[in-house]
């Protein structure tokens, strides 16, 4: 039984983090190569199968995939959709979730017991509810437009879906914030108090700046989880990559295209999320408290 850590390369030097984020040494492309190879094999296999059964009118699998790729990545012409929409939704939901989560997390350490209990209850509720149920909740129970001061503000489906996805993110970010604040030694609060810092000053100038470092890896981990949850919005009728891939399959009406098309979609997400996961791991090690 070798004492090798998961995901660790046999000999990992401690590289300096450059401006670009992660350096080559932390990014082992082994899994990437295997997954990419598996995808190519899948396409090649389907191609061979298609060639065997073709009536001569069908285009090749590779040609068909390339034809649909722009649509799946960027959505139909003149409209925003596809994989780009998945990414946009993930950014926006993460932004909303982070801001709301920090507020909720700070609420959990509030001096007022009522605020503390309420924040705790809200956090637990949204952490323990299934994402899809929350998504349905927001999609079906919010209006499609709101009237405010005589203005009618439309709420498109993708915006509501974004809001729905940000709820569970909010609750989990709140837990990260609370956990990291609790991980700062009590003596720091006490020394700040002895230097006549107010509670707000202590929190914003002493405690939270230290928390940022500790919160970054789990925060990025939640970003990756959120990104992988974005295809759920296809269930509630948003034109994301999943919906468009299924539209493409419906248009082509070819069973030999099923595996390559879904494989392509999996590959897109993998290519986006895997580097984030590696980078998260790198930061986790870098910021780890030695002891």
């Amino acid at each position, binding site marked *: 039984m070798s004492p090798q*850590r998961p995901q660790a390369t046999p000999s990992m030097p401690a590289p300096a983090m450059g401006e670009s984020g992660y350096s080559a040494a932390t990014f082992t492309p082994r*899994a990437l190569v295997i997954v990419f190879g598996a995808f190519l094999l899948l396409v090649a296999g389907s191609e061979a199968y298609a060639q065997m059964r073709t009536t001569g009118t069908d285009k090749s699998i590779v040609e068909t995939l390339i034809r649909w790729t722009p649509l799946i990545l960027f959505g139909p012409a003149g409209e925003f959709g596809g994989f780009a929409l998945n990414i946009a939704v993930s950014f926006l939901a993460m932004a909303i979730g982070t801001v709301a989560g920090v507020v909720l997390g700070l609420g959990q350490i509030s001096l007022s017991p009522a605020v503390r209990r309420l924040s705790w209850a809200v956090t637990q509720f949204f952490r323990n509810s*299934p994402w*899809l149920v929350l998504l*349905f909740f927001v999609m079906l129970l919010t209006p499609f437009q709101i009237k405010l001061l005589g203005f009618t503000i439309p709420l498109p489906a993708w915006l509501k879906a974004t809001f729905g996805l940000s709820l569970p993110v909010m609750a989990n970010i709140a837990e990260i914030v609370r956990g990291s604040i609790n991980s700062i030694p009590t003596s720091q609060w006490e020394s700040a108090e002895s230097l006549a810092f107010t509670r707000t000053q202590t929190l914003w100038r002493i405690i939270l700046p230290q928390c940022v470092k500790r919160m970054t890896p789990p925060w990025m981990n939640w970003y990756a989880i959120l990104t*992988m949850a974005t295809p759920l919005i296809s269930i509630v009728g948003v034109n994301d990559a999943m919906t468009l891939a299924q539209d493409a399959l419906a248009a082509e009406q070819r069973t030999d295209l099923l595996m390559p098309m*879904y*494989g392509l979609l*999996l590959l897109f997400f993998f290519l986006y999320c*895997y580097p984030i996961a590696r980078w998260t791991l790198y930061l986790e090690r870098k910021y780890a408290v030695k002891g």
Partner: protein
Amino acid sequence: MEFLWDALRQLHDTAGINLVHFYDSFERGRLLRGMWTTLQLAALCVVLSVVIGILGAWLQGSRLGVLKWVVQAYIQFFRNTPPLVQMYFFYFALGPQMPRIINEYGIAQPMLGSFEWAVISLAFFAGAFNIEIFRSGIEAVQRSTVEAADSLGMSRYQIYRHVVLPLAVRVCLPSLNNNLVNLIKTTTQAYAIAVPETLFVASQIWSDRINVFEMMVTLLTFYLIIVGIFVWAMTRVERAIAVPGFGR
């Protein structure tokens, strides 16, 4: 029970709170069947994913480099792709490639239905995380303990089965619980491939009876209850098997 249903019917007539999925025996029946399906789905996925986790962690400790690579690629792939797309891949892309069987009515049908595919895809998804979790637990087992077992002449399998695994399970139980709770919540995704689980049945009921809000609240309550029961049970297990002399 009749008294309660009548009271709920009254509530609908007077207060407009439509709890038809409780007092109407047909709706109640399908909701209960949906909940039963969810429980079955969750139980099967939990057991299978734990088995995958234990097996995978064992394979990762193997001396064969290729085997380690394959397990590593499996983990990274399932961890870094959306579970929904995985489920679609299994059900829509892999499903039609499976051989067909003749059912009792003499009609050819796919060998595996949507329920089975949901179990397979969710178990593989959560299993990838479980391997990592067991792996971290195994690493936490002190090397001297393993060496001691080795010096007693135990085989690799015996060490794994009787020394490493029992200790590792105790160490990684909290993170395992976390992942399994997540898995139970993810069973709602089986909605997308029309497995008649709670969310699917609930959406049918709220479309038929137009009681979206009441149904939603029931649905969330149901999931909070089953997650709550699971967490409570696992905490009991955790306490029961805790090794004395660690932690506080």
